[in-house]
């Protein structure tokens, strides 16, 4: 069982972002970076699969500059066996361009299962895995909340509106992972030390044509501060009036 997990390095989301001077992205100064949450679930799910099967290994792949090596090392310290950096100076916004590079790498890898997080938590497009599956001609199961592999076949559960969906698929396949499947393990020091000795291969990314770019990025308008109309029963008529005319909720 050979599993590839494609992971992305993303900024911590719970900060007040600033728009960069270019107006086409966020100001990266002072941001903290880590593996995208859904990708973390995918790595954990992959590790648990190989542990359960008692065989196979997990490889992790990430696209980007040398900074992504940190993210790859984290996956290695969690237990992945090998990491590949598809090196490019700037990660394009276009999922197709990225998917082409990933597909080129994955094609040669001979993987039984290719896993993604259901989307990156920064771009939140959730598209890459579809394009990769298409390029490789493999079946895709999107947003799995449970995943089992037995006898060369996979079964997965997907959460859908008001219920669940159980699907079966042949291997090899592409799956993307939703939260709730497994909480990513905290790497032990033993894992971190072991990760230092694991292979991390660097290859130039064979990006596809970039057809989608960000033109302008803006922050949502700041919310207006609350207003005090008055106090006690006397303020009610004014409040009702404002709710009708300004907030238009009545």
């Amino acid at each position, binding site marked *: 069982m050979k599993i590839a997990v494609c992971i992305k390095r993303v900024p*911590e989301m*719970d900060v*007040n972002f600033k728009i960069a001077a270019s107006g086409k992205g966020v100001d990266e100064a002072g941001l903290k970076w880590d593996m995208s949450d859904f990708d973390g679930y995918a790595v954990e799910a992959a590790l648990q699969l190989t542990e359960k099967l008692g065989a196979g290994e997990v490889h992790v792949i990430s696209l980007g500059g040398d900074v992504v090596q940190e993210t790859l090392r984290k996956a290695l310290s969690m237990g992945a066996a090998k990491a590949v950096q598809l090196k490019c100076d700037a990660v394009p916004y276009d999922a197709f361009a990225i998917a082409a590079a990933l597909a080129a790498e994955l094609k040669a890898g001979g993987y039984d299962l290719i896993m993604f997080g259901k989307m990156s938590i920064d771009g939140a497009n959730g598209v890459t895995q579809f394009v990769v599956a298409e390029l490789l001609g493999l079946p895709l199961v999107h947003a799995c909340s449970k995943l089992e592999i037995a006898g060369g076949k996979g079964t997965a559960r997907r959460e859908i509106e008001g219920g669940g969906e159980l699907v079966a698929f042949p291997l090899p396949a592409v799956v993307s992972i939703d939260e709730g499947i497994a909480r990513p393990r*905290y790497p*032990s*020091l*033993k*894992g971190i030390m072991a990760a230092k000795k694991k292979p991390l291969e660097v290859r130039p990314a064979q990006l596809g044509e970039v057809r989608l770019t960000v033109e302008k990025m803006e922050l949502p308008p700041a919310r207006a501060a609350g207003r005090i109309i008055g106090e006690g029963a006397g303020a009610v008529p004014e409040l009702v009036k404002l709710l009708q005319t300004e907030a238009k909720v009545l």
Partner: protein
Amino acid sequence: MSHVAFALVLALALGFFSYNAQRLVRYLRIGHDENRLNDIPRRAWNLLRIGIAQTKILRDPLAGPVHALVFWGFLVLQVGALEIIAQGLIPGFTYAKILPGPLYWLFLASQELTAAAVLAAVALLLYRRIVVKPRRLQGDGVHSGDAIFILSLIGALMVTLLVTSATDRALGVDHPAAVQPLSAALAQLFASVPHGAVQAIHHVSWWLHALLILTFLNYLPYSKHLHVIVSLPNTFLSNTSGPGTVGAMKKMDLEQETEVFGAADVTHLSWKNLLDGYSCTECGRCTSVCPANITGKALSPRKIVVNTRQRLLEVAPAIVGGDDVFGMPFIGAARGDAESRAALLDHKLLDNFITEEELWSCTSCRACVYECPVSIDQLEIINEMRRNLVLTESRFPEEVQPAFESLERNGSPWAFQPSERAQWAEGMDIPTMAELWERGERPDILFWVGCMGSFDDRAKKTTVAFARILQAAGIKFAILGQEETCNGDPARRMGNEYLYQMLAQQAIETLNRYEVFTIVTSCPHCFHQIGNEFPQFGGNYEVIHHSTYIERLLADGMVPLKHETGEKLVMAYHDSCYLGRYNDVYDAPREALKRALPVVQLVEAPRSRDKGLCCGAGGGRMWMEERVGQRINVERKKELLATGAEAVAVACPFCMTMLNDAGMKLESTVPVYDIAEVVAARIEARSGDGEARPSEGRSEAGE
């Protein structure tokens, strides 16, 4: 003839004893190396104070003096035992031949009186073991039978000693009756007994006494009474008492090539941890003061130590080779003769003897270490095993992971942004180090705020109060603001030494960049960590806890206080472990309170100062759920409320939170104040200052 027989018996006994002694030393060596011969003067002082003067034993007002008596008696009687041995080897020897009369009489009197006293003590202790059965002497595989046997042996030693000297007198040896009052009285009983019979009794009694001494000696290695031999060396070799060594966790070398970090088994502990196992007297003092144990958790520090010994004796023979003589394991060792060597090696201390749950229950309050009469460090074993759980196995309570991750990402155990760190200081005109540095200025002190003091709403009030005091006193101080990061204490206490070292190094870098010399902090955990543990990484600063600092400012009259007299507030001060037992700061907070409220009436909870009960938050427990038993903070709060206090004073943001939470659970309206708040409320009001006074803020409790 009988001298030849005695010489033979003696040689046999000593031979067997030395065999056992060597065996036990060989077992110790499966632990790893550690230098415990540094700082000899401190060690010698501990030996005198704790070992010989028995200061720790005497902390228990009942059993303490009785046991101390047995110990001192034991020392005195050794002089007599030597005489007996010499007598056995040299026909007709007595000290009388080498000592001048009066000195010899003194010797006789000492033996006689000691024997009587020890006999009485033994009777008391037996009564306690058999009839009273105090709680702390039960449970955790305590060997009561063993204790009763040893007590009986000591009793028999005393009886034979007295009978021997009484028959001596009856046979005509003539010392003044005044130096042997008991024997003299006993001798009267033999007056009517035929000479030959008395001689026979004398002979038998002497032999019995001599043989009992040798039996006692050889029984020790098979009993918890091994402490008779090892407790003094253990006290000498211990790091549990003395400035600079108290409570500082060992630095780990993270670069070493190893499969196992921390301790999963006895082979990963140091020889000294293993010697602790030999030294344990199973007295249960540690367990009886353990907040986790008191409130019904699985943790018992005694069990930790006894388990360490049990596991050592189980596995060591398989490692060093050679079996226990006659298949007689040391008391407490599992009787695993049938088990194969492989099965023994397969076992380990972690999981097979000590569970995860026990290890995570510890609040690192140090009460156990403080109480142990033979200077055992239970906490070090717990800490080493926690390190194993985290660093090697990544096994810890679920709630801990977000704290680790947040420490890594945000430099704080809570998911707050560094940019929010100095929000409390807005509008207070407090410079950051960076600002001062830019202006080419230096502060007198750096106020290290700490994560809790920066982010927790309740603790922020303490932070503000302390800053006000500093301002009122005209102290030139600065904060690090955004640049402050957690010193790593929570990570280290939770076993994550890797994360800790990253954080500590980062903090030290920041401090060194600004050439910081003096640091004042209102958090005892920061205080302990920066002051006592940062030196391990080259961070050397003068660190003062805000209670001490405030007390000094008040003593120097530097804080302008309002002079009011009418108010009278009954207050109970709660000692925090990292201030008290870790750093010996007990008086400063109390003094600060008294000075701030000249008419304050300070009341003490039954458990206070070095006997204080933990609030339950230390050792990373702040980030873990308390699922089993009663809540430690509630127990503590009840105790504080029972003093009748109208307010509770603390000097730690963790204690503050815990006691406030407990207050809510108990629906108590008694407020909790930090000492800084009490003092700040008394600062001479500048115009327009509307500071709340402690007595007005009662409804604040439980915020």
